[in-house]
């Protein structure tokens, strides 16, 4: 009797315990290889799980490419999953059941790669003779650290100056500002301030992208030879001073009030579309939005203004990327690599980025006729060839660095800390992380 009950309780316990661990990714026995697929694959086919961060129409563009791959490669079937929660990738990799291929933001590559979450791709690159020289250097640098490549950048973003032709004409300008001092003059003239300080229109939002302008002043965030982070680099200081000068003309109170009354970015009420901003610094996707939300807007695209004392710094910009990578612990890295390699070939890259309105990262993709239909792309494609494009130095602590820098940049603009004090704080916090 007694024994029987004990056995029953044990069975119950056991079944519950195994039931629990079924949800534990590290113990679940299903590897990517033996998952059933919708379309019956060839005998020894592998199925690869591919997690990407895009959704909606962008995901559809990606799925079209995946379908193309699947029909051409019966032995390697790829299953795409739109998974815009990037934290899930962390959990999956830590749990030992990662997707076979995944997309990420460029600035996470080196932090993840150095910690072993991404497979270094160097062996594959050498073996297949992938020509890394074909990639835009600033874009590729987001995936590399000390000679190792952890991911392949598939799309990149860079900002340029957008200007409202009608507003500029009204103010008597027949072209965009070309130098920094012209920019300052334009902003002053194009802004409309009511009595009492209430803003009606801004020439340019003063809390502008500090990275883009730092590079415009030849700023650098890291000194390789001294192994020092350099948030206090004179070039960065010049960029902050420029923003601060414009900011102080209007004051935090008026700017807060003005900006919180502005419409949503992705809508017809976007301040640049509705004429609340005469100019804006924005990325290559903006023309696609303009076409969608404000097709009558009479606008132009121009290079980031340069310092007239340093004409060699024309066409500068800050590059960020989206990448594909192979997570640590995948069952079939060779197959994953084949897919990544194919996806980042100029033809597929062009098809994907043209559908997304993003820039390709390979020079040989630039000339693809697909881009002719993308609004505003000519300017951006030309700009992508500029030698003055930079990207934030890839390092294991890049996210901490950017977070701390933007927090202090905000505090400096608002005048709660002085520039020296704020930048010293960044340095004091980040330098110990340099190893």
């Amino acid at each position, binding site marked *: 009797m007694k024994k029987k009950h004990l056995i029953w309780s044990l069975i119950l*316990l056991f079944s519950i315990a195994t039931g629990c661990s079924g949800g534990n990714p590290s113990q679940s026995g299903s590897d990517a290889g033996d998952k059933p697929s919708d379309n019956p694959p060839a005998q020894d086919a592998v199925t690869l799980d591919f997690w990407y961060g895009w959704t909606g129409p962008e995901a559809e563009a990606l799925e079209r490419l995946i379908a193309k791959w699947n029909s051409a490669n019966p032995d390697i079937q790829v299953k795409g999953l739109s998974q815009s929660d990037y934290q899930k990738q*962390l959990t999956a990799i830590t749990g030992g059941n990662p997707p076979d291929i995944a997309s990420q933001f460029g600035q996470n590559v080196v932090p993840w790669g150095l*910690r*072993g979450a991404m497979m270094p791709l160097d062996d594959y690159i050498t073996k297949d003779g992938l020509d890394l020289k074909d990639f835009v250097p600033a874009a590729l640098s987001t995936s590399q650290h000390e000679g190792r490549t952890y991911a392949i950048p598939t799309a990149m973003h860079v900002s340029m100056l957008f200007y409202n032709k009608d507003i500029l004409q009204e103010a008597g300008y027949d072209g965009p500002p070309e130098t920094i001092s012209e920019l300052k003059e334009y902003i002053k003239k194009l802004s409309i301030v009511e009595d009492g300080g209430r803003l009606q229109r801004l020439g340019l939002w003063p809390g502008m992208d500090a990275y883009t302008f730092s590079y415009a002043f030849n700023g650098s965030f890291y000194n390789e030879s001294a192994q020092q982070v350099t948030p206090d680099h004179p070039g960065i200081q010049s960029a902050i001073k420029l923003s601060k000068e414009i900011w102080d003309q209007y004051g935090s*109170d008026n700017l807060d009030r003005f900006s*919180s009354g502005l419409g949503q970015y992705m809508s017809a009420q976007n301040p640049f579309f509705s004429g609340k901003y005469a100019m804006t610094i924005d990325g290559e996707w903006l023309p696609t939005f303009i076409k969608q939300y404000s097709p009558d807007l009479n606008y132009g695209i121009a290079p980031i203004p340069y310092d007239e004392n340093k004409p060699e710094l024309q066409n500068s910009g800050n590059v960020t990327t989206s990448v594909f990578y192979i997570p640590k612990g995948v069952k079939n890295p060779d197959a994953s690599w084949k897919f990544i390699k194919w996806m980042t070939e100029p033809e597929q890259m062009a098809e994907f980025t043209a559908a997304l309105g993003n820039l390709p990262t390979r020079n040989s993709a630039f000339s693809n006729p697909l881009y002719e239909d993308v609004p505003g792309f000519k300017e951006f494609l030309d700009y992508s060839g500029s030698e003055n494009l930079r990207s934030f130095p890839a390092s294991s602590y890049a996210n901490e660095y950017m977070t701390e820098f933007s927090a202090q940049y905000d505090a400096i603009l*608002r005048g709660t800390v002085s520039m020296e004090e704020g930048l010293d704080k960044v340095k004091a916090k980040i330098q110990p992380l340099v190893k």
Partner: protein
Amino acid sequence: MRVSTAANQRKHVSGWSRKERHYVYLGLAFASPWIIGFLAFTVYPFFGSLYLSLTEYDLFSPPKWVGLQNYEQIFADDRFYKSLGNTFFMAFISVPITLTVSLLIAVMLNFKVKGINYYRTIFYLPSVIPIVASALLWTWMLNPDFGLVNMALRTLGLTDPAWLLDPRYTKPSLILMSLWGSGSGALIFLAALQGVPRQYYEAAQVDGANWWYRFWKITVPALSPIILFQLIMGLIGAFQIFTESYILAGGKVDGSGSLGGPEQSLLFYAVNLYQEAFVFLKMGYASALAWILFIIVLLITFILLKTSGRWVYYGGE
């Protein structure tokens, strides 16, 4: 025979009879899902995080023992103090306000007027809406130019602040939002209110006590155990506030923007912890942060419970 009886008796005294043991096993078997869940998802992570807080752990490579180094770093970290300050603000200003308001709502909902059930439903309704949805809703309501709140303020001739962008107003915005959800607290108070014996009020009325006096001398003391309960739960909730800030000041999806809003005025403890763990991949450091939060909450709860004897009245005593 005698021996065996004695043995049986001894067994009976020191332990359980066969039948009792059988029920104990059966009981344990039925409780086992919870027991296993508790061990696997509460006890194990609890001690796991204690261990991790003494290591450097980035999720991918094995944890590296560093002793108390994480704790030393925390006390030199600006972001720790900033986030703790913001969180204290919410705990010690927002929670008492919300509590008072929900008590007042409960008192109002306790009046016997026509259609009281509709009022009760209406006040409770916002509590059913997920925080994410209500946070998004409030970004519209708090819009300085065409939001409802400022429209009302302007009609009254008051200042209309830039709620979610001016660092001085971001936390008051969140308090305003939390007031909107005070219906669930009011519901608990309402239930307690209906348990207050009517005789007390009748006796007080006979003695000529006015409404206010009755409220202070009967209602509040009678509700004091519930107030204590709500206060503790509210404080624990406030120490873990996350979603509102993440939605309202969440920077960009790519994590490049700084979480925490203008001048980090919405950088709460849990937001900072999340960022350290999942953006900066410093799981060991984040575990240490979590333990400090645990100790703070434990201390505050302990102090509240210790001092509560002076103002909490239990009906049975």
